[in-house]
């Protein structure tokens, strides 16, 4: 396969905040189904598409992602001909308006300009989907367009995808506008913040942005470019999640409990790679009851688990009930504790409080390392 493109994985825009989880790590490092991290999906998509030069831009709290990606060998990237570069931005505070993807690219412009490939695929580290980028690139080259943008048609744009951009297309799939989703209608075309363009246009947009506004993002620049360049949409089909709020995060995990959805997404011809930990299998004790759930390894299950995601090394005590919840790694749910509609972060210990329930649609979030 010809490697005509290099990959760029960017962070979520500075106005995207996911309650709770985001205080401890960037969205790319969020756990998905208890064993993956969100960033595994764009990297695996690139690796499976034959892209073996990948830039990962980190703009805040990089520890968990750096640890997770490491030398990138687990992503099946050729260790001689390919590599994953972790690129940092030092100059801006986490929530600063200047902390944009463009500023990250500007700080590392030399790295970008040195890439030998003619094209670039830009993909976000906060979305989960499956896409063959080689196919997208071939389509882009064949169409002769300047920028190809990936989008997904959704019917819950009022409740979800609130921090995403929506696109409007003309009949020829030409992008007419790209703007924030204000939740004005159910049906929208959500931009997947994924673009294909020549390296030349990419570098040009970055340089222009500097003159335009110090707070502009690549998406802002492409929105502007709709007037002068040929920007076209490419429809994505299949599972798609944008992790832009706790609700979106929760829903993305829960959707995978639908067996058909999971089997359609996880197929042996398109593996999703992750860092593995050699965790032993999970032990289910006599008296445990587990239904409609995904359970990771090294768990000790003594209680009841329903419609939930259970991360690695989790203990569910005797008589405990976990319902419609996401329990992240190393959490210890004590005997007799009842948890419903919650996202319980890593290393949490629930012993004294016997009931954690959210009555609203939005799940309750339990902070990392909390002892309750």
């Amino acid at each position, binding site marked *: 396969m010809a490697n005509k493109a290099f990959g760029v994985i960017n962070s979520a825009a500075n106005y995207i905040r996911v309650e709770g989880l985001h205080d401890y790590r960037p969205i790319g490092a969020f756990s998905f*189904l*208890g*064993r*993956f991290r969100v960033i*595994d999906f764009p990297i*695996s998509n690139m690796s499976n598409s034959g892209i073996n030069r990948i830039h990962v831009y980190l703009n805040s709290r990089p520890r968990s992602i750096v640890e997770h990606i490491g030398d990138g*060998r*687990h992503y099946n990237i050729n260790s001689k001909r390919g590599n994953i570069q972790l690129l940092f931005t030092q100059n801006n505070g986490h929530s600063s308006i200047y902390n944009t993807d463009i500023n990250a690219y500007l700080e590392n412009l030399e790295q970008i300009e040195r890439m030998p490939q003619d094209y670039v695929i830009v993909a976000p580290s906060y979305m989960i989907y499956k896409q063959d980028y080689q196919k997208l690139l071939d389509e882009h080259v064949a169409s002769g367009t300047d920028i190809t943008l990936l989008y997904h048609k959704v019917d819950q744009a009022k409740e979800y995808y609130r921090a995403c951009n929506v696109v409007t297309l003309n009949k020829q799939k030409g992008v007419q506008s790209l703007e924030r989703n204000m939740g004005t209608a159910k049906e929208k075309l959500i931009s997947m913040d994924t673009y294909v363009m020549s390296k030349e246009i990419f570098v040009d947009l970055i340089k222009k942005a500097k003159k335009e506004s110090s707070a502009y993002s690549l998406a802002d620049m492409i929105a502007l470019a709709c007037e002068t360049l040929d920007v076209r949409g490419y429809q994505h089909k299949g599972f798609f999640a944008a992790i832009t709020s706790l609700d979106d995060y929760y829903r993305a995990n829960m959707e995978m409990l639908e*067996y058909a959805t*999971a089997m359609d997404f*996880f197929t042996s011809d398109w*593996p*999703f*790679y*992750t860092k*593995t*930990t*050699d*965790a*032993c*299998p*999970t*032990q*289910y*004790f*006599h*008296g*445990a*009851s*587990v*239904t*409609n*759930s*995904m*359970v*990771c*390894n*090294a768990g*000790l299950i003594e209680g009841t*688990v329903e419609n939930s*995601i*259970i991360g690695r*090394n989790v203990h569910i005590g005797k008589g405990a009930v976990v319902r419609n919840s996401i329990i992240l790694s190393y959490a210890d749910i004590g005997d007799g504790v009842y948890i419903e509609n919650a996202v319980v972060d890593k290393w949490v210990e629930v012993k004294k409080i016997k009931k954690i329930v959210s009555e609203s649609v939005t799940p309750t979030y339990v902070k990392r390392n909390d002892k309750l």
Partner: protein
Amino acid sequence: MAQTSMLAMILAGGRGSRLHELTKKVAKPAVAYGGKYRIIDFPLSNCANSGIDIVGVLTQYESVLLNSYVAAGGRWGLDTKDSGVFVLTPREKADCGLDVYRGTADAISQNIDFIDAYDPEYILVLSGDHIYKMNYDKMLSFHKEMGADATIAVRGVPMKEASRFGIMNTDDNRRIIEFEEKPEKPKSNLASMGIYIFTWKTMRKLLIEDMKNPDSSHDFGKDIIPVMLNGDKKLYAYEFSGYWKDVGTIDSLWEANMDLLDSDNELNLDDTSWKIYTEDTGIIPQYIASSAKIDGAYINQGAHIGGEVSRSVIFSNVKIAPGAKVIDSVLMPGAIVEEGATVTRALVAENIRIGKNAKVGNKKSEEILLVAKNVKGED
């Protein structure tokens, strides 16, 4: 080349014929165990966790899968510049023809050149088919402290059963004074575990002599140890007390799997300070459907449970359809149990399919049934 203090040689050439069809195409050390492991993961992980960098794996019988499996030393962290796992199969040499390994000692003798290249002070000889966790570094400290020529790991077995083992008789200082293979009237209950540390200089000489001896069967237990005891060599017994299993039969392999269902099982695979490393893939977590009922199980990631499971060990990519039942059984990677089928007291081999409504195994049977061929379904 940097000198290494102790080099390990894992004997992994045995067929394990009492495991029947399970070892028809793979050697015993490559047999699946414990939901996600292969047996050889145990000695290899023990080596890695004990700080041993160079591990030779001596393979012979049906070694294709085993060779490719162990060659990826990175799996056990044995892939730094100074470490590695080396597959050593019998090879043709300039001064003698191609010869199979004629015995455990011969397997080492034929690789003296490999060992010499690392110039070790000690060599550790292990079996590739035992399930246990052991810190070989502690055993080496003991070996050095005793100034031994050989240290043999032993474990206490019930006196009643001692006549089934190779028994070491020791003096008060744990020095071995006699070795008896399956004695009718055992004098001690210290059974050899087939784990040896030898001072390489001494052992090298003995192996060269042994190669020239036409009457030798070139076996450590039968030939080398007796020669050492008859000479003036110092042999010591190092007592080990943790979990240890030689899974020679289908029944014992099944039993060793079932041991993992105990909440306080001695093997303690979830001890993060002494992990057993293995091939770990990025498959999805265990998927437990609404129709599932699990009552006592040890289940690996990537298993799909739709039916009932009780007291069983389930490997990755196993699929148990809704309405199927799995009781007191071990389902190896990729095994499929279709709707309405029942599996009882059985060990189902890798990638075997149990068809719709089929009944396999028997609750009352004393022996465990090995299912190594697909079972047809009934409508």
